[in-house]
Each structure stands twice: as C-alpha cells, then as structure tokens.
C-alpha cells in the first residue's frame, strides 16, 4: 500500500506544478505574502493599531532609501505617522481575511443552492431566478444599501467594530450566484451519470446522494472559480473602501490605505498610496495566475495545447 505522501509525490498535479515556473513562482509569492500578513503582529516593526506608539510628528516620512527617509520606517509613514510597512501588513491581513471570508460565504450559499437547484428539479426555476435577480444588483448597490442601514442603526462609531464581518456579508451575498451556477451546471452533468443512478437503486436519500456522491464530484470547478473569486472579493473590498464604504481608517485594509493616501499623492507623498497599491496588484496578480494554472491543469483539453 502506497502512503499518502508517496501518492502526492507521484501525482501528476505536483509534476506539472513543478514544471511550470509561473505556477511555482506565483505560489511562492502568495505564500510569502499570506504568511507575512498573518504573522503581522509578530514581524511588523510597529503596531499601527496602538495609538500610544504613534507620533504625529513622524507623519509623511518618505521611505528609507530616499534622502529624507528614516531607518526606523523602512517604507516611510502615512499621514498619521504610522509605519507604512506595518500598516500594509496589517492591512493585507484584513484584505485577505475579508476576501477568504466572503468567498467561504459565497461558496457555502452557492454550493447549497446550486446542489438543490441542480438535483431537485422543482426548485430549479425559482432558485435560478433568484440568482438572476441577485446578479442584476451590483455589489456596490448592495454595499451602499446594507452599509447605509448598518451605519444608521449602529452609529458610525460602532461601525468600525462590525465593518469586517459586514463586508464579508456584503461581498458574500453579492457574488454567490457565480458559485450556484457553476455547481448547478456540474450537478446537471453528474446527475445523469450511472453512479448516481446506482446510488438511487440502493435507496439512498436525496440528501445523501447530493452530499456524498454528487458534491465531491463537482468540486474541481468550484476550486477553479474560488481562486478567481478570492481575488475578486479582495478587489471588491478595495473598491468599496475606495468609495468610503469599506474598512475605516483606524483599521485600514489595503483598499482604505490606498484611498487615504490618494489625497497626498499631489503633495508629493506618493508612497502612502502607491506602496499599498503595488502590494494589492501583486496579491491579485499571483492569485489570478495561480487560478489560471489550476484551471488549465484541471481542463486537460486546454492543457495539452
């Protein structure tokens, strides 16, 4: 009996992965970014959330390699005097958490609805029409709507505390139809296969057939869109923050950092907005490259090329 590790080592997945520089370089960068984001409290030189460590006198210091730069702030400081590097790491952590959280919510809703709609034909019409309606609202409309309600309900001060879960909820609600459609399409393909009929002949309940037989076989397209959806969710969050509907400045995400710095770009403090911008683009880029690779790998017709 081969061990699991040997199986992984022999797998075609690893083989193709290690032979595609785009794949492993993207993966390496993504890993470095993610780990440093989540390890931010440990590795960041400063704590941007702790007002006692911030000195307004340090505001708008340029990065260390410029003439006026200071050694203590490698990438300079922002308008409040927070260390850019630390703020960006913490901000990236928030961006990634919101991205992943939103995608989990999307995937959960989408998979459940897609499975029901694909396997129980009576529900199909109604569920897919709901999805259509959902898609016809843009993420921003939902965000403005829900955001406005919550800001008035809880007050702007408390909004800060619930901002992250709220954004997860908004982005998650806005984009589940992508998942529902993908899952439904593969359920429709799978349900015709004979192993599903065999499960019915055994007498298994609908729920069990959906969960144990059909679901595992619909997961590869879900995996493919998930990577893209994480990137999209991070972008949505950044865009919402840019519009002032996202994370507050006291707990900035990459998006709110870019927005905040944008005002200072003309006064010469370009780094406050450009540096988080580059980080955001890099993050989105590697996720998308990796997603493309996974898609090509799982679609052998394209891959053979």
């Amino acid at each position, binding site marked *: 009996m081969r061990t699991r590790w040997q199986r992984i080592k022999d797998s075609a997945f690893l083989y193709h992965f290690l032979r595609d520089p785009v794949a492993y370089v993207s993966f390496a960068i993504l890993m470095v970014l993610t780990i440093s984001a989540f390890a931010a409290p440990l590795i960041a030189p400063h704590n941007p959330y702790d007002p006692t460590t911030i000195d307004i006198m340090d505001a708008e210091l340029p990065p260390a390699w410029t003439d006026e730069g200071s050694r203590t702030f490698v990438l300079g400081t922002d308008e409040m005097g927070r260390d850019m590097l630390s703020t960006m790491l913490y901000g990236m952590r928030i961006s990634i958490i919101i991205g992943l959280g939103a995608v989990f919510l999307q995937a959960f809703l989408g998979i459940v609805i897609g499975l029901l709609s694909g396997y129980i034909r009576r529900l199909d019409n109604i569920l897919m029409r709901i999805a259509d309606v959902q898609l016809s609202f843009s993420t921003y409309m939902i965000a403005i709507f829900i955001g406005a309600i919550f800001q008035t309900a809880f007050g702007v001060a408390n909004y800060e505390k619930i901002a992250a879960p709220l954004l997860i909820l908004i982005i998650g609600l806005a984009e589940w139809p992508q998942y529902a459609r993908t899952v439904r399409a593969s359920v429709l393909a799978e349900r015709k296969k004979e192993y599903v*009929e*065999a499960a019915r002949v055994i007498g298994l309940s609908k729920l069990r057939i959906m969960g144990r037989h059909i679901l595992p076989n619909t997961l590869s397209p879900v995996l493919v869109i998930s990577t893209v959806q994480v990137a999209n969710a991070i972008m949505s969050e950044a865009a919402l923050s840019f519009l002032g509907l996202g994370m507050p400045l006291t707990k900035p995400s990459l998006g709110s950092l870019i927005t905040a710095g944008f005002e200072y770009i003309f006064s010469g403090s370009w780094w406050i907005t450009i540096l988080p911008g580059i980080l955001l683009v890099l993050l989105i880029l590697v996720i998308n490259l990796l997603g493309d690779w996974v898609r090509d790998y799982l679609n052998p017709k394209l891959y053979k090329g």
Partner: protein
Amino acid sequence: MTAINANTSPDGSDVLVSIRDLVKHFDISGSWIEQLKLQDGRLQRKKTVVQAVNGISIDIREGETVSVVGESGCGKSTLARTVMGLYPPESGAVFYREKRIDHLSEAQLKPYRTRMQMVFQDPYASLNPRMVVGETLREPIRFHQPAIGSRELKTKVATVMEQVGIDPDWQNRYPHEFSGGQRQRISIARALAVDPKFIVADEPIAALDVSIQAQILNLMMDLQEQRNLTYLFISHDLSVVEHISDRVAVMYLGALCELASAENLFASPRHPYTQALLSAIPRLGRPFSHKKLSGDIPSPIRLPSGCVFHTRCPYVRERCRQEVPTLISLPDNSRVACHGVEEKWVPN
C-alpha cells in the same frame, strides 16, 4: 388471448417480477415558453413527448434469465429503469412477488431495494470516481443494515469482492486504478452486496473487450447458479443473448414484438422484425444474407399508426396501418404482436 389488466397481480406463483402494460413517456418540451407554437394563425401550447415505452408486459419467473433486445433507442434502458423505480411510469404496473411496487414512496420501496438491484453499462461512469471501491461496497450494506458490526461488514465486503474475483486487499483503491472489466466486477459486487434476488443488467458487457466479455458473462452465470438469481438482461449482442437467456423479448420503438424462449426465437423467429434482426447478426465465416429493411427507424416522438413496424415491414398490408397488433400466443408458447403472423401471411 386474455386481456392484461394492470390492476390484477400475476397468478403464476413462480413469477418473481411482473411487468404489466408499462408505459413511460418523456416530456422534452422544456419550459412553457418553448412549448408555444404558432399553428393555424393561433398561438398554441404544444408538448413534445418521447413515447419511449408503450405498453410492455413481461412476467419474469424466479431463476430465469429474460433478455431484452432491440435497436438503439427502442426503449430498453427506459424499460429497465422504470422497472427499477428510477422513472415513474405513466401507466401500467410492476409487481415483485405479487406486491405492486411501482407507486410506492422511497421509504416504502426500501425493503425492495435489497431484493432488486441493477448493473449498468458504462464501467467508467457507474462507480463514483471520488470514492474508494471498499466504501462503494460498504455503503449499501451499512444503509440497509445499520446495526451491522464493523467486523461483520468487513468480512461481508471481502466475501463479495472475492466472489466477483477482485482482490479484497484493493479496497482502498479508486475506480480509475482498475480496468474496465474489473470495474464491471465491482459494479456487480455492489449489486450483490445487499443480497438481491433479481438483477437488471443494462448492457453490462457492451463496453468491454471480447476477451473480457466472456469473463463477465461467466461470472454472471456462476453467480446465478450460486445464488439462484433472476436476471433481466439487456443487450444488443444477439449471439450473447442466445447463449445466456431462457427467454428473449424483442422490442421495437417502445413496443414488444415478440417474446419467446431463446431456442424458439433463434430457431424460428416469427415477427418480421425479429427475422430481419436475426439475419443481420454477423456470423463467423458465413457470408452476408441479411434481410434488408428499407427506411429508417421512425421517431418515438411521432409513432406510426397501427403496427409501429409497418413503415419498414416487408410484409405490410392495409390492416397493419390501421390497427395496433396485440400479443397473441402461439402453440409453442411464443407470443407475437403481428397481424401477418396471426393471419399467416408472414412466412416463418
């Protein structure tokens, strides 16, 4: 000929499964917008219905093998799936030992699921690709005997695997690690796991190589002997059907043309369609001598009037175009649905 009534249960006590006047149609017209058609200047709603199975009756006796043959699309698989309760029939009935089972709910059907099982055609689609074969075999047993101990479950799975000739040590492998023939064995093992009496096999060897076909057929015949199984065997390979069946049902466009013992059917086919079908079987080293049929099979969406075979039948007469022939019993117990046979204008 006695009229078959869908509401009376079969009388023969050795009849295990009885199919009575079974009708199965598929509505393929889609949503109601797609059903709208402009006709005679008016908008009308029209349904498109595939008449896949139209009034088929077969009594299957315990321990025998009844085969169903016929061209592609004639409704063999639909018949099999309707008997298994995978499709609800439009009308007609299915009996298991005098109990009517076609209208039961899933929960009421549960005890019959252990009695009736199915083996499918495509060895590459009939096993869940994400499940190790051991789990594929454990699942039905656990489902029907939730109280079973883990040791007993293990020996049971090992026993069926051995019975079908798969090494029990391979339980933790995925289906893609097996050859087509081995997968078909595993499919058979899954059907056997719940100790059924009756197995529907829908073209179980069609996707396999000649040298593997013999292995699977031998396995099925051995199992039949060991466990006194009853088979409804669907195939388009007539030489295989001739070899393994006790009785053969010939289908054409959803209708039963002829039902006879394998010996009688292959020695003296009565129905003009059976005659044409049998003459087309390629025989080793014998030159072609098939009866040519003119024309193509009509669509099951618009069935021909009268005898469904009349558009291609070489012996067609006016009565065939008007009147649907019913099954008549011949002296040798064969049953044929043909006016020409009844009135003796079709030679045999």
